[in-house]
């Protein structure tokens, strides 16, 4: 192998000095596969409920403690081009579904690993790619047939709270195992609060808000229908029941023009009257609000001293929000129209809220808008460190995204690796029917699915080979057999230890979403094929231009 001289004579001389040129299996393909393998090693141990966390310190010295593959990869700055392809695939998964990112990385790199041995056997990359694509097609055909029927439709999510909560628990279980039951139910409640009763209204992930407050324990987290804002009120009144609310995007103060100007005072009398007029005009405005029955004002700008005085006088509560998005969300919560100018809202423009009050959670003051008919729900997460809170937020995010996927396509598949084993055996059968050389590739594709339960078992500290054997045997009778971690029923009674065994995932209510799996397999295969199809790498000499801007988009949740 080493005898191969890949460089075309003279090719290097065609390019600038400092550029690099790699060609062929040895130099390009294997190298790329190697890089992907290494990337996968980092995330492998964080897969599944027993996955371990990673501590990542990113380029601005922010500390992350997480086992969320998407977050890890985003923060560690992968630069290798091939590894980046895989990373982008997982990124796409994050965008499409919001969960199953680690699955993509894992599956993709294992596909590549298997491809490597095929290539070494002498298959050409294109043959492998063909085989993988065939297998992918078959997989996508097979997947829906494994559906676990629980009579879940888009319309009746609300009535099947228990099933929904189980689905979300599976998602949270892979991040915060041990808290998944508690959080799962909380998130389910929040999501169901937000979804409209009619099936036509779509579910927006943004409507489930998260408010992180340091202190206490995770189990003290709560859900409120409405909003929670980490602010204090401006006014003296701190609690209003049956609130009638006016929402303004402008400051509550004396109106000022955009153009800078000075009042022209012609005479002494005008000067004398000036401040009185000002006072009177603002009092009229606020009195009008009060007369209209408004007892809470939410403003996007400053509340002026003078205005505040009159607000207090007329017993109106004033809340100031700095974020435009928060203002919009509050308006949505209470069904109000945001007014750009200080005027009395009409009856339709006013918002209503069951109660608005200031509460002290831990040491933090929060304003809580509690409204039973709210379109927004807020999860107040508690935790003893910032990292736990962040990790918790990611887990909740995943769960909410899962819910969203559920509203789109409520088909459930058996979880815990059961689907994968079933796929593996079905694909192996399929491979035997294929006459061409792709047979090998399909065979390998099938084997790749084995890794999922295998890694689940390995991360739990169980002998993976034993589990695999058991799963294959069991699948002859029961296609829903999977690897089940921890029998929750037994934990409640405290008598039984937690088991790591194969079990019927349907009985244990371990569900995966069909869409998640579909896209994950699709993205991973496509990424793997892309990496495989590269046979030449050309790197131009790095230009000494100005530094590229850092990607600022990573923290822009609002």
């Amino acid at each position, binding site marked *: 192998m080493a005898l191969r001289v890949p460089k075309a004579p003279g090719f290097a001389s065609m390019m600038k000095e400092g550029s690099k040129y790699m060609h062929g299996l040895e130099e390009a393909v294997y190298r790329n596969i190697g890089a992907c393998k290494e990337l996968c090693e980092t995330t492998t141990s964080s897969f599944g409920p027993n996955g*371990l966390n990673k501590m*990542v310190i990113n380029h601005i010295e922010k500390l992350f403690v997480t086992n969320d593959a998407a977050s890890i990869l985003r923060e560690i700055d992968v630069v290798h081009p091939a590894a980046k392809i895989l990373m982008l695939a997982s990124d796409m998964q994050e965008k499409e579904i919001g969960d199953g990112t680690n699955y993509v990385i894992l599956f993709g790199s294992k596909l590549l690993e298997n491809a490597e041995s095929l290539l070494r056997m002498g298959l050409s990359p294109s043959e492998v790619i063909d085989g993988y694509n065939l297998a992918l097609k078959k997989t996508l055909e097979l997947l829906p047939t494994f559906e676990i029927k629980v009579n879940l439709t888009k319309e009746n999510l609300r009535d099947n709270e228990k099933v929904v909560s189980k689905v979300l628990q599976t998602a949270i279980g892979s991040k915060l195992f041990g808290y998944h039951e508690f959080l799962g139910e909380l998130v389910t409640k929040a999501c169901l609060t937000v979804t409209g009763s009619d099936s036509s209204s779509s579910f927006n992930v943004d409507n489930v808000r998260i408010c992180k407050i340091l202190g206490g324990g995770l189990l003290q987290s709560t859900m409120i229908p409405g909003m929670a804002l980490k602010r204090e009120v401006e006014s003296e009144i701190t609690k209003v029941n049956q609130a009638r609310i006016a929402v303004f995007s402008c400051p509550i103060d004396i109106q000022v023009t955009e153009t800078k100007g000075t009042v022209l005072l012609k005479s*002494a009398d005008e000067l004398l009257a000036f401040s009185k007029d000002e006072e009177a005009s603002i009092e009229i405005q606020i009195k009008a609000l009060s007369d209209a029955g408004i007892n809470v004002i939410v403003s996007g700008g400053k509340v002026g001293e003078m205005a505040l005085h009159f607000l*207090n006088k007329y017993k109106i509560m004033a809340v100031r929000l700095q974020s435009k998005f928060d203002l919009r969300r509050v308006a949505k919560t209470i069904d109000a129209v945001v007014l750009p100018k200080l005027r009395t809202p009409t009856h339709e423009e006013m918002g209503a809220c069951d109660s608005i009050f200031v509460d002290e959670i831990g040491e933090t003051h929060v304003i809580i808008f509690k409204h039973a008919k709210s379109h927004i729900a807020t999860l107040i997460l508690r935790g003893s460190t910032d990292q736990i809170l962040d990790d918790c937020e990611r887990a909740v995010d995943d769960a909410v995204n899962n819910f969203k996927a559920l509203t789109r396509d409520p088909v459930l598949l058996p979880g815990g690796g059961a689907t994968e084993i079933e796929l593996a055996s079905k694909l192996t059968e399929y491979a035997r029917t294929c006459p061409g050389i792709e047979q090998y590739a399909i065979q390998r594709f099938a084997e790749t699915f084995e890794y999922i339960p295998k890694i689940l078992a390995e991360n739990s500290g169980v002998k993976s080979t034993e589990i695999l054997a058991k799963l294959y045997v069991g699948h002859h009778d029961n296609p829903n057999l999977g690897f089940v971690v921890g029998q929750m029923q037994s*934990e409640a009674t405290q008598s039984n230890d937690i088991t790591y065994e194969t079990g019927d995932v349907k009985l244990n209510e371990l569900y995966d979403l069909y869409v998640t799996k579909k896209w994950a397999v699709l993205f991973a295969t496509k990424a793997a094929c892309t990496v495989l199809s590269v046979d030449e790498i050309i790197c131009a000499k790095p230009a000494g231009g100005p530094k590229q801007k850092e990607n600022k988009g990573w923290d822009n949740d609002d």
Partner: protein
Amino acid sequence: MQQPMIIILKEGTDSAQGKSQVLSNISACQAVAEAIRTTLGPRGMDKLIVDSHSKATISNDGATILKLLEIIHPAARTLVDIAKSQDAEVGDGTTSVVLLTVELLKNSRTFIEDGMHPTIIIRAIRKATALAIKKIKEIAVHIKVDDPKEQRALLEKCAQTTLSSKLIARQREFFAKMVVDTVLMLDDLLPLNMIGIKKVIGGSLEESCLISGVAFKKTFSYAGFEMQQKKLLKPKIALLNIELELKAERDNAEIRLDNVAEYQKIVDAEWSILYDKLEKLHLAGVKEYQKIVDAEWSILYDKLEKLHLAGVKVVLSKLPIGDVATQYFADRDMFCAGRVQEDDLRRTQKACGGAIITTVENLSEQTLGTSEVFEEIQIGSERYNLFTGCPKAKTATMILRGGSDQFIDEVDRSLHDAIMIVRRAVKNDSIVAGGGAIEMALSRTLRDFSRTVAGKEQLIIAAYAKAFEVIPRQLCENAGFDATNILNKLRQKHAENNIWYGVDIMREDVSDNFNAAVWEPAVVKINAITAASEAACLILSVDETIKVPKSSAEPSNAAKAMNMA
């Protein structure tokens, strides 16, 4: 053929992985705990920390010390976080929460070394935590709050327990009473910002006093101040947000224009005004100008008069009160103070009623406050304005005296802890015995429970049980006692179901701490245990650290990463 290295991460990225990583994280946490270990308990020692601005701080508050240490190790930073969280949630017990976490980690260390999977340990820890919290809730004693006398006694004892481990342990009875008085004065929400703590250097600790009302340092004042009354009975108080000074009414008065031609006119007008003024001045015909000046005076006098006519005796303003106004008030036996701090003003408002007003147009009974007595007194070298006997006294002010800045600061922190504890105790009336008693009780419960568990978890729950003993052990060690001896006695007592036996610091022995009135709110312990185990789990669950170089570093690119040499 030599396999070249594949770099997929940025150059300079640090990555550590595996078992050794978990172990090194534990070691780092242990090092942090060493720093604050000796501060625990009544015989704990203080730390003197000089920060980067060479400001000295003396403290034995765990959270304060950790904050000042500026720890950068990622795992150890978790400890700072939980100390902060404990501080936010309950205010006290910051040292014990850190000690407990580290002891848990230390005890788990051997299992990690033996190759036990961290997830098993984590699960066991969570299980043990749930059990411990259940146990606390079970054995915590509820004190009836119907009887105000009994509630008072309970609160004072809780405050004393907290204070006993602080710098002011010797004066704890004195301060405990003060703290309880303060908190009971507040309204239902128990807002912390309604408690003012003022520090005056000089005098002894016992000269510190509590004022059921508001006190603040005399503000800067103009001439005429000396003639004002220094003591007023039942004064009416006006709280203003107006400048009582000779000055332009508003500097951002405005004009609105219709078209461009107007603009020119305005400019012309402005010029002509100026010329006009100058000319008039020049011609000594200052009639119009004088009128303007007169108007300004009359606006001011108008305001002052309104205040006077409303019967106001004390005028407080957030904004300056000029010498004209000061003089005016002095002539009419009124008191005034300008540039009062906003929170002081708010507290005065809460105490005396009324409202902070921005206009003097319609002064009425509702907008004016009152108090029994207003006086200005001398405290140390400072003069203080005092409002006492307030009708709506939902606020209190503590005036602390002491020898030095650092000393008073530490007293401030200690009292803050005590206030927080009392606030928690008011809201949650269940208490447990301190001095290591509750920890020993939990330790025993968990140890007994562990024997009923089959499998690896048994070892870990037993280790958790042992970790609880760190609190009484450290108490003994800090006091210079024979820890082993005392712990043996405690274990024996607890085995006989004497659940409230703890360390008796005074007699170097064990005693029933519930009878000895060493009490702590149960919620403090519950939060400490929750936080400690969450943090321990977090640290144990990390098996890899990846450190990306700071963004200031030269950005490496794909070509470099390929590194195909």
